[in-house]
């Protein structure tokens, strides 16, 4: 399918824009690559279960303003003490952002600003991990991205205050597309938390195509939260790649509750000894939601460790996709790799397509993966009902318990609360978390 006229024009314009030479070159390559590939179709193995070609049929505009009233802002945001950058349909909003009092050792700036001043060596970081060959979406982002965040955590600094990136999608007369690019640099022995939060107004049907590149210098630690609760008509694509050096520790919380068509690609490269990655994922699909999570852990060095746990709940006619790959390079010995994907189907019309992959070229390793797909345990429901809890409530409780294995790993009270409430809110009407909380407090 050919690309919409407006998109082709925008790609051509981006390729010829007046920009620093390094960026102009990347834009041209990205535009050419995307034009050659187009939106991926199911003919490609990586997109076997997720058809993106329908995006070709939509004329996405581009937002120029970051208008947002306070009521909406308050309703959507996480009430969290953090260094905050706010973007409305990809446009930076200085009104709602709050980066005036940055803790020592932390630098946070919108990409547009960093690009003009080449602050934080953006030219080195932009596209060096998530390049144009990552996926057609990464190529598209490279060609068109002009906003996002540039974050750097200084050597030896442990920053308590999280960096909070809030992306708000508005319900506009015509849908728009945005291509945020987030560059994170963790200097040696630093520690930080980054939260990417994607939300939207009811009915927003925009395309968000984010790219996150994370460089982790030796002995740095990073907790990365991605909470995606866009509207049920939003298109959301995220491509995340992490370069982990010696003794680094990366924890990813990939929480997907919203969106009509969602695709996350997450790659962690364990490039030196004793690098550890923890991938946690939760997705809850309802109605006709389609949520696709692709993860890849590359054990490129000996004595590297990975642990992955993705849990999916699917109701209505929702479809979930999980593809997790663990790759162990030749001679990357004494690696531990563990992967688990558990799925709960709540409806007969829901579907899950899961593929946990192992690709192993070293012998002295311990790798395993497991996946299960099933329904709630009838015995457990019976046990609860025998104690006077009605069936709906019992089902809700057990579903919440299923998700809890991932939720309990969230280390921020505000975030935990938000996710728990969101999950509970998706359960049948008669399931009332509030009343439950009151009951138990008695």
């Amino acid at each position: 399918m050919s690309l919409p006229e407006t998109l082709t024009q925008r790609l051509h314009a981006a390729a010829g824009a007046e920009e620093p030479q390094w960026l102009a070159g990347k834009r041209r390559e990205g535009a050419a690559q995307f034009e050659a590939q187009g939106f991926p179709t199911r003919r490609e193995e990586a997109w076997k279960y997720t058809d993106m070609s329908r995006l070709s049929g939509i004329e996405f505009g581009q937002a120029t303003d970051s208008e947002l009233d306070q009521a909406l802002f308050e309703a959507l945001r996480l009430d969290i003490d953090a260094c905050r950058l706010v973007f409305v349909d990809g446009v930076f909003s200085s009104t709602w952002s709050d980066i005036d009092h940055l803790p020592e050792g932390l630098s946070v700036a919108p990409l547009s600003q960093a690009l003009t001043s080449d602050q934080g060596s953006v030219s080195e970081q932009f596209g060096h991990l998530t390049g144009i060959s990552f996926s057609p979406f990464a190529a598209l982002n490279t060609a068109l991205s002009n906003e996002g965040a540039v974050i750097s955590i200084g050597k030896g600094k442990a920053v308590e205050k999280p960096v909070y990136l809030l992306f708000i999608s508005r319900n506009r007369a015509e849908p728009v597309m945005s291509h945020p690019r987030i560059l994170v640099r963790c200097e040696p022995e630093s520690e930080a938390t980054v939260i990417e939060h994607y939300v939207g107004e009811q009915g927003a049907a925009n395309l968000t195509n984010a790219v996150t590149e994370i460089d982790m210098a030796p002995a740095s630690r990073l907790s990365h939260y991605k909470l995606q609760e866009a509207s049920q008509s939003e298109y959301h694509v995220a491509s995340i790649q992490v370069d982990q050096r010696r003794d680094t520790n990366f924890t990813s919380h990939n929480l997907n509750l919203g969106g009509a068509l969602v695709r996350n690609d997450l790659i962690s490269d364990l490039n030196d000894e004793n690098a550890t990655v923890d991938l946690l994922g939760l997705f809850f699909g309802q109605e006709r939601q389609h949520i696709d999570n692709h993860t890849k852990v590359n054990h490129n060095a000996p004595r590297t460790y990975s642990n992955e746990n993705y849990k999916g709940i699917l109701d209505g006619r929702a479809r979930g996709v999980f593809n997790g790959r663990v790759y162990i390079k030749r001679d990357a010995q004494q690696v531990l790799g563990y992967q688990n994907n558990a799925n709960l189907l709540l409806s007969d019309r829901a579907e899950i397509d899961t593929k946990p992959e192992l690709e192993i070229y070293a012998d002295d390793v311990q790798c395993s993966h497991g996946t299960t797909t099933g329904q709630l345990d009838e015995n457990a429901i019976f046990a609860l009902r025998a104690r006077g809890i009605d069936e709906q409530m019992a089902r809700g409780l057990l579903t919440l318990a299923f998700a809890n294995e991932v939720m309990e790993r969230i280390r921020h009270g505000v975030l935990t609360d938000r996710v728990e409430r969101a999950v509970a809110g998706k359960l049948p009407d008669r399931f009332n978390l509030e009343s439950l909380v009151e009951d138990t407090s008695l």
Partner: protein
Amino acid sequence: MATEAMEQLARREYKQGFITDIESDTVPPGLDESTIAFISQKKGEPQWMLDWRLEAYHQWLKMTSPSWAHLDYPPIDYQAISYFSAPKKPEDRPQSLDEVDPKLLETYEKLGIPLHERAALAGVAVDAVFDSVSVTTTFREKLAEAGVIFCSISEAIREYPELVRQYLGTVVPPGDNYFAALNSAVFTDGSFVYIPEGVTCPMELSTYFRINAANTGQFERTLIVCDKRAQVSYLEGCTAPQRDENQLHAAVVELVALEDAYIKYSTVQNWYPGDEDGKGGIYNFVTKRGDCRGDRSRISWTQVETGSAITWKYPSCLLRGNESKGEFYSVAVTNGRQQADTGTKMIHIGKNTSSTIVSKGIAAGKSNQSYRGLVKVSPRATGSRNFTQCDSLLIGDKCGAHTFPYQEIGNSRSTIEHEATTSKIGDDQLFYCKSRGISEEDAVSMIVNGFCKDVFQELPMEFAVEAEALLSVTLEGSVG
């Protein structure tokens, strides 16, 4: 209209081809309509069979060789292959065991193959291969008594055309995939089995005993039909390494199980894997599929794959009948430069269907192997159950083991479980054995056999014993 015209053209061309070739027993290398017509003519096939082959050939022409498997091999020149050759004349074969490659004989020795069988396996021209005539005769009599049909596929096409026509290509259609299409066009050998309603086949059927089996075809086609409440256990291949001049093998196996029928299909594949650099090994591209057509039917695949340079093989089950059951037990061992991409597909269509997959992969030397499988549960197949276990063992640091399990689950009343592990033989396990006076090589062989136990116990008794010996021979030289 277009297809009609094409068929006419096809018919015209083969006529010319077959006139020139009819006198000879071997067609020159190359593949076109005339080759197919020649094969069909040689086999004395009816017109419908020839049409069927040509249709498959036309589909094959439009297809491209699959490239998704985790395999690396040079492109195959299909025009350089001779698609039909008559059995070798006795004077062309080695006249005694002295003329046979000593390495091959050494392997026979290790496997404990009786002397008189070695000659037959090595292709030595002996008048009475072993006491096969009498064995075969009693065998045939017993089968006939039970009403079981067991013959070569060519014979079946001539003798039981209605039966063959009813079932051939219904499980693996001619255009199913590239290699199946090629096989459908040019197959020359294979078996046909029909077990009538209510009959339990009185003995295990084996290609080993089938008349005419001495010359196993390069493009085999096997069709097994089990009627209502019938049962059969079928063995394919044997543990002895077989030399074969044909590098490309593309077999198709179709199983049909009607209501309450049970087919157990066991394979031991030990084709020549090539030399240390992987030169000259067999390319084995096989399409095997069983159709659990009737309610409560059951198909069980068991395979031990140790040979071939390239293995591309996914024995599958279509679980169409309600409460039907599919099983797949596999041991794949690769050494040297062997590459294997193998696994299964379990397609749950009927209600309350169940499937079990147990796959054990052992990679040594510079070999690579992959488990590739699909478990698909259709929305209608409620109450379905799958359990999958794939374990890989790596021996040495130059090999690779990969797992690519696909699961597509379409309803909420089914339970699917999948587990996979990859590890090596533990140093502590080896130490334990060695401290008790067991040599390292024996210890490895013992541990590997233990690793494969779940699969070996599914094999018929005599096969299981041979398979264990085979495993140690295959892994020879991979330790230390």
